[in-house]
């Protein structure tokens, strides 16, 4: 029987929540990583290693790793640097692992990789090539501490094929391991003037259907969007949702048409509309939406969900997990129909991932 392990990256370290396949009773362990702020923690099935991207205000950026499900931890920042020059590394955030490599998105914008299980890192790309890059990547034009690569999405079949999100700029796709990039923002909406038609789009979270690598979804600063052609073009699917703003979203593991998102008030609040918590699900690729709230608080629940705050597991009846910026972790074991609060008092949650591990 497999063990279900939910990995929460929080502002005060990483936590592990463990259950069996039934996912009814949960044990919480942590905090790990010396309680450093964790921006994204993942599980790499190939090696059975947990990786946690961290940035300490005192000691800088690092990636922690555990090969024994949190019993012991090591950290390394060897190679996590832009060296001498105008680019400064303030933090690492989005992690992804596939094809024997671990990628870490960085702020200021760049992508680092490790080929030795996180022991050492090297700079893979600073997303060169776009004609407007000198302008948007100029430190003088960046809000301090805000422009970075929060996520990298690796293609499951091709190690040289991956997508990088640059905050407030958009999606960049490479099929030659970062030598060249194409923007993949066609059809996206921007409610602000664009200096260049290809860039200036605020992609919060990009996911790929495990069933179809051409089927992508994204939750954007303005709108929820779907692509049926691997990101070449985008179709807005916001209609039926209460707002067009949100961060976290997740693809269904078995059904290419089912997708989950959490939309928020888009002003200063960025919390659940009307203080009533809900996850939204489409089963027809965005044609219609269902509000899922059974078991979620429906009164005075001003919850925020950040971009990495939602995940799905791969069991036949898939689990869906949502972590809040006020430290609650909710789980559904029936595809989102009903929810249980499996942790109530964690530090503010930045990321949620889930792994199925042989017990």
């Amino acid at each position, binding site marked *: 029987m497999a063990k279900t392990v939910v990995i929460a990256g929080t502002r005060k370290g990483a936590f592990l929540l463990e259950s069996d396949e039934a996912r009814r009773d949960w044990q919480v362990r942590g905090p790990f990583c*010396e309680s450093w702020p964790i921006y994204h923690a993942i599980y790499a099935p190939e090696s059975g290693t947990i990786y946690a991207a961290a940035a*300490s*205000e*005192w*000691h*800088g950026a690092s990636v922690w790793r555990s090969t024994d499900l949190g019993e012991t931890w090591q*950290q*390394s*920042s*060897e190679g996590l*640097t*832009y*060296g*001498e*020059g105008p680019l*400064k590394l303030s933090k690492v955030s989005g992690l992804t692992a596939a094809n024997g490599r671990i990628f870490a998105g960085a702020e200021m914008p760049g992508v680092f990789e490790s080929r030795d299980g996180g022991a050492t890192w090297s700079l893979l790309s600073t997303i060169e090539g776009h004609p407007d890059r000198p302008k948007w990547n100029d430190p003088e034009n960046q809000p301090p501490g805000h422009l970075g690569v929060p996520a990298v999405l690796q293609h499951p079949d091709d190690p040289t094929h991956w997508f990088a999100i640059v905050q407030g700029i958009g999606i960049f796709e490479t099929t030659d391991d970062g030598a060249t990039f194409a923007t993949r923002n066609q059809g996206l909406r921007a409610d602000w003037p664009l200096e260049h038609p290809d860039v200036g789009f605020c992609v919060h979270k990009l996911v790929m259907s495990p069933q179809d690598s051409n089927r992508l979804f994204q939750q954007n600063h303005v709108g929820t969007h779907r692509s049926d052609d691997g990101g070449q073009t985008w179709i807005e699917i916001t209609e039926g949702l209460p707002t067009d703003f949100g961060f976290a979203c997740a693809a269904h593991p078995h059904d290419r048409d089912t997708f989950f998102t959490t939309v928020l008030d888009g002003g200063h609040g960025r919390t659940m509309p009307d203080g009533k918590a809900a996850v939204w699900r489409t089963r027809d690729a965005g044609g219609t939406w269902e509000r899922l709230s059974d078991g979620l608080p429906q009164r005075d629940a001003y919850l925020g969900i950040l971009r990495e705050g939602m995940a799905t597991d791969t069991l036949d009846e898939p689990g869906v997990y949502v972590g809040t910026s006020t430290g609650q972790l909710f789980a559904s074991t029936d595809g989102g129909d009903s929810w249980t609060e499996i942790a109530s008092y964690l530090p503010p949650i930045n990321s949620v991932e889930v792994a199925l591990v042989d017990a």
Partner: protein
Amino acid sequence: MADVRLPPTLPPLFPGLPRRLELEVATVGELLDALDAQWPVLLYRLSEPGPTLRRHIHIFVNGDRAELDTAIEPRSRVDVITAISGG
């Protein structure tokens, strides 16, 4: 030998690193290099390319705020402090 005192956040990252040790160095920069030689990457935890001290790392030599080029005398006391920040 200078009397060097380190913050409690560092030893968990570097096995064998004590909170307090004695080193024969001439400047703060040399101190960080000496620590890094024995505990690789420790330099990066306290300074950034430039090189410059990290914004929230403060070093005091005999009670005075120091920079990388500040001199350390043989009997100096050196305190490495994490800034009083965070919540």
